[in-house]
């Protein structure tokens, strides 16, 4: 993985900074404190990652667990995934789910952050209560939504007055899981964007007000540009997390009906743990890694830029 290669490359510099004015013994003693974590990173992140990359090139099935034999098959797993009739739809679902979630979460989060950025009674209490959905296990909130969206006795259809198959229809399942995921993500977006708004000096708005700028001009000329570093962080982190979403989809639809709400994450789970084709599941996982790494770099760049500006 390129990220880890470059991580190692930074070692000599960090090393040199630590050496200055200290004995060899002190350096080793200091290293002893982080050594367990270094070992931990190797065993629990690097090893699984390498294992998954390797498994993507192996015919790894249930039999492999008993025999310990998993022959290398080159790119066969990737070819099989590519030719899987569900793959194209899954990629499209992933894009729609991710883009839809990010856009609406961000817009709603920003609107709420701006709303709470003003002073009014009970602001602090109400704002922290908004975080409650974010602290609950996703399986629990997903289950609550499944009950709300239930076709026959769910409260949504009871209120609408006719039975809409929110989770049971191939046309609506993806929309439904996206809406629930948006609900999950709004508090996170609000908290981070609220923090960003607090960093914008109030004098800027006062000066703009004196110059006769209206609310829309203040929003587009001051708020949005000054919020840009925070925006990039929220959107890239949101993207990385949305790609990982598993619990919400599993509880609501298990990726169904007929793969209509399947994303790359649930598809990988389905291949590995339902069809027991671990090699192909790993191949899909590796595709996800590539996407995540690309955006991880966007995130790292963005945070470095933001720190540089501070």
């Amino acid at each position: 993985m390129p990220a880890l290669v470059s991580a190692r490359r930074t070692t000599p510099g960090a090393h040199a900074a630590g050496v200055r004015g200290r004995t060899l013994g002190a350096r080793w003693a200091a290293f002893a404190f982080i050594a367990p974590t270094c070992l931990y990173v190797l065993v629990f992140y690097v090893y699984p990652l390498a294992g998954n990359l390797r498994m993507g090139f192996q015919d790894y099935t249930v039999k492999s667990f008993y025999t310990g034999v998993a022959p290398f098959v080159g790119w066969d797993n990737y070819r099989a995934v590519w030719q899987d009739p569900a793959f194209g739809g899954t990629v499209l679902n992933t894009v729609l789910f991710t883009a839809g979630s990010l856009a609406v979460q961000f817009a709603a989060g920003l609107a709420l952050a701006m709303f709470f950025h003003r002073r009014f009674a009970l602001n602090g209490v109400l704002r922290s209560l908004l975080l409650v959905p974010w602290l609950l296990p996703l399986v629990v909130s997903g289950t609550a939504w499944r009950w709300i969206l239930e076709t026959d006795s769910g409260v949504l259809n009871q209120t609408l007055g006719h039975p809409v198959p929110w989770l049971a229809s191939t046309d609506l399942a993806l929309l439904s899981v996206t809406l629930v995921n948006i609900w999950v993500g709004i508090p996170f977006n609000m908290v981070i964007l609220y923090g960003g708004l607090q960093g914008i000096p109030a004098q800027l708005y006062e000066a703009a007000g004196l110059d006769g700028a209206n609310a829309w001009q203040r929003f587009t000329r001051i708020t949005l540009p000054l919020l840009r570093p925070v925006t990039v962080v929220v959107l890239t982190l949101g993207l990385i997390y949305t790609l990982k979403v598993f619990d919400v989809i599993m509880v609501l639809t298990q990726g169904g009906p007929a793969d209509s709400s399947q994303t790359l994450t649930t598809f990988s789970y389905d291949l590995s743990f339902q069809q027991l084709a671990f090699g192909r599941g790993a191949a899909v996982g590796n595709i996800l890694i590539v996407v995540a790494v690309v955006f991880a770099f966007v995130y790292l760049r963005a945070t470095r830029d933001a720190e540089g500006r501070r």
Partner: protein
Amino acid sequence: MTARRPASTAAALVILAVMLFPLYWMINASLLPSTELIGDSPTWLPLHGTLDGYRQALSTQGAHLVTSLVVSLGTVALTLLISVPAAYGLAQLRAPGGRALQFALLVAQMIPGIVMANALYVAAGDLGLINSPFALILADSTLCVPFAILVLHAFMRSIPGELREAAAIDGASRLRTLVAVFLPISRNAVIAASLFSFLFAWADFLFAVTLTTRDDSAPVTVGIYRFIGAHMTDWNSVMATGVIASVPAAVLLVIAQRYVAAGIADSAVKE
């Protein structure tokens, strides 16, 4: 700027009501008898409430709740054991290789969970650890260690180094300085890291559903998941289980609000 603005407060209450409605609806359903759950019109208030759901939930999910508790507490212990020395080494001792380690931890958080689950399942299979709470503790700690180090590091960096030097002059070893001086000062950060680790482990579903194949070794998230699969119509006890499984989060919010706020402020790196 001292205006009370009652209209804004009213609007905020409406927003809050909309956002928290699913939680209210869960609590409502957990108290309603089955006859009131199925029908053409919703029952908005549990006026003829029953605790049958909770009784049923405790009898079928009690063991899962205990498993969750054991796994979550174990995860907290393991996470602290690894994170506290690391944060101290990074923040106070400027350990060699520290920057590389921090970078690796940042990247580690971005590895998709399903990839970790896939690989950890194979490793746990090789070691005969499928269905073992120990495997779940190890797997769940991967969700917690990077975040715990981040929170602890941010706090310990703010403690003046003179304290460490003074302890050294008094003859304390580095380890003793950490345990006797820095740990008590960092109490709030340690509590915040522990609370979040507990919550991450408690809420974990992906590792739980992949690393447990037997029902009796599954934590409560998987318990609920399989419960909906098996008893689709028994919403009353499903929702009661959901309410019980939310208790740690509620406790966290009420008792430890200041630690939570500190934890969130410290880091934008948690979903």
